[in-house]
């Protein structure tokens, strides 16, 4: 019995001691919400350096403290920030890592690697590319309220949610970076005088940004990328090929299937032939054109017209990805899975992808035509 009592005493003494050596008092910490990485600019002294900016919201959540420094890595810059800040800086609540577009074009992996190595940084940190100055973007005040960091967070969540676009996070970036059959992507944001705008998707070859999906193309990218659960599609028919002018399909859902029709051949140097099969269905809530949407036969005609339009846009988007050598929709994963492992390993997928013959088959079904016939 005495031993048990003794052990209880030891336990009681030891437990608070643990807290003593490792305490984190919330009032004494500065929680970094956003870290931005940009090119340091020209000049001899900036060789191999980056500009790091951190934004630390104040306890009111209305304002943020911001620091910038030129350093070799974000960690080195942190030392400079720590010397200025009255609270100890921690990464535990980081939500965004912003990368300047010009830095992204040079490659981001070293920075991602150190972010992912840090146990205090979660893998759900948003990974975003900024067009224009990230430092300026964070500094500005926005009528939307709150700090820029909070604004970006909400914007990305709402936008990607509506489009059913993937949340681009450190997790998704690292996953696709290591996967040899798909290339990573990142959402692009741009600062405007009164707002921040979601401005498309950055395409990467390995860790270098090589292209961009324009905002108009986002629904098509969503369709090609995977399952869309509820998207909006505005179809602006142009040219004489169509008998319609404008149609809007809302709440559309889509599925995609990738079929590898023929494999790439190393000896002949030919790329693979791939068909992306897409099926769409949604409510048609806006229509301008000559098709009489109240008639059954005409409805089928309209479906065909939309399908044709979507097919062309999707194929154009794929050409653009091929030019950027960025297989952002993961066609390589399907080609890999229909090849022998050793053959796949010999293949330079970025090169093969750029030469691949990829066509898109689209099936559209209009679920309903709203309240009118």
């Amino acid at each position, binding site marked *: 019995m005495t031993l048990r009592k003794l052990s209880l005493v030891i*336990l009681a003494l030891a437990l608070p001691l643990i807290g003593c*050596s490792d305490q984190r008092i919330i009032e004494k910490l500065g929680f970094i919400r956003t870290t931005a990485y940009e090119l340091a600019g020209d000049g001899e002294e900036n060789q191999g350096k980056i500009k790091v900016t951190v934004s630390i919201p104040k306890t009111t959540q209305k304002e943020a403290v911001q620091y910038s420094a030129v350093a070799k890595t974000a960690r080195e810059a942190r030392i400079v920030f720590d010397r200025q800040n009255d609270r100890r800086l921690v990464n535990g609540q980081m939500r965004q890592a912003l990368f300047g577009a010009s830095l992204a074009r040079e490659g981001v992996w070293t920075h991602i690697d150190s972010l992912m190595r840090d146990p205090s940084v*979660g893998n*759900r940190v948003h990974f975003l590319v900024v067009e224009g100055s990230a430092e300026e973007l964070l500094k500005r005040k926005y009528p939307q309220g709150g700090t820029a960091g909070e604004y970006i967070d909400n914007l990305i969540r709402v936008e990607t949610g509506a489009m059913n676009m993937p949340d681009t996070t450190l997790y998704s970036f690292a*996953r696709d970076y290591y*996967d040899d059959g798909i290339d990573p992507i990142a959402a692009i944001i741009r600062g405007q005088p009164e707002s921040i705008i979601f401005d498309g998707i950055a395409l990467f070859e390995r860790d270098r940004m090589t292209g961009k999906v324009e905002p108009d193309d986002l629904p098509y990218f969503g369709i090609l990328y995977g399952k869309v659960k509820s998207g909006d599609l505005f179809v602006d028919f142009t040219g004489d090929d169509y008998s319609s002018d404008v149609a809007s399909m809302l709440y559309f859902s889509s599925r995609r299937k990738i079929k590898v029709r023929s494999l790439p051949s190393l000896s002949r140097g030919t790329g693979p032939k791939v068909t992306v099969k897409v099926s769409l269905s949604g409510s048609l809530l806006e229509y301008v054109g000559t098709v009489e949407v109240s008639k059954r036969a005409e409805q089928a005609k309209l479906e065909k017209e939309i399908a044709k339009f979507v097919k062309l846009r999707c194929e154009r988007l794929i050409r653009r990805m091929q030019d950027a050598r960025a297989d952002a929709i993961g066609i390589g994963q399907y080609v890999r*899975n229909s090849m022998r*492992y050793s053959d796949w390993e010999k293949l330079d997928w970025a090169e093969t992808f750029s030469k691949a013959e990829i066509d898109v088959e689209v099936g559209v079904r209009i679920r309903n035509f709203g309240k009118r016939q």
Partner: protein
Amino acid sequence: MQGMTKEKINSFHLALFVYMCELDGTVFSLARTIAENVGTNGWVAILLLSPIALINIFLYHILFRAGEGRSAFELLEGTFPKWILSPFYIILAAYWAWLGAIIGKHFLLIYQTFAFQTTSPTMLLALYCLIVYTLLIKDIYSILKAVTVFFILTCSLNMLIPYFFREWKLVRLTSSFFQGAENGHTFHGWFEVYLAFVGFEVLLFLFPQMDKKGVALRGAYYGHLMITVIYIISVIIAFGFFSFKEIQSLQYPLINTLEYIELPFLNRVENLIFTVFLFANLVSTIGYCYASKVTLQRIVTKAPDKLFAILIIAGVFVFGCFLQILRDTEQWLDMGLMTEALLSFAMPLVLIPVALHQKNSRKKKERG
């Protein structure tokens, strides 16, 4: 002491005990170990390796039958004189305490990469030892009851599995099997994967507390099958949630998957969840410490129970203090578990002939 209660271990408790003993620090890196040593779709390797452990458990079953439920010590002492056995007992007891220490320290060092970075690891080890001590001074039935509670805590983590479905993709599993292993397929590599199963052999020391027919041993099979299923699920999740080459680059893929969990009111919950694994490691340490204790008790029979417990815990603490960096514990854990895996086969293989021999000579005596 223990013989005083009439209670017998039932198969349910044994199943949970085997499950918890097999579950230790190796599970954090299991997906990587498999990706490195087996390659693509490496989860199949678990299906291939699990029967080996099943055979091993079967050997213990045979031993139980052949020895008619007598403990390993009774069998050995029936054939060999005690002065030959004593050195072996001491070596084994020390070895098991050492293994328990490595398992504990390894977990603590991993834990410290994520939380309590600046706390002295010795202090954490002292607390860990204290918990092990409080259980070790109890009889085996109380330990098993505590294990049941620990099991419920650990097993409830499996409810998180559906959380990963959204990001999980079959296509990432690839269509090839066993390709892309870093150093090709080696015996050593596959053995390393097998180490995830080590731990069940502690059941040898529970023989005296089982029913005479050994019905409880059925639980060992169930426990092992249960952990096999859990291992397969966790590896399949990792292989479809991360990309194959990424897994090879992640130190502890399981922790990275937990990191992904985000609740509306709370994120970075892995620090909380991770603590639950403490219990899994705790049970493994307790298992080996218990083995160590009963072995020591064969040499000095008259000393009080608690003295052995204190002695062993002191050993665990001292062994644990020697290991200060993760690279070391990893290496020692590998080596320790490999030895244990071999020992796990060797023990029944040595004891079965001994048991059969004693059985035959007894029968002869009865007849003649």
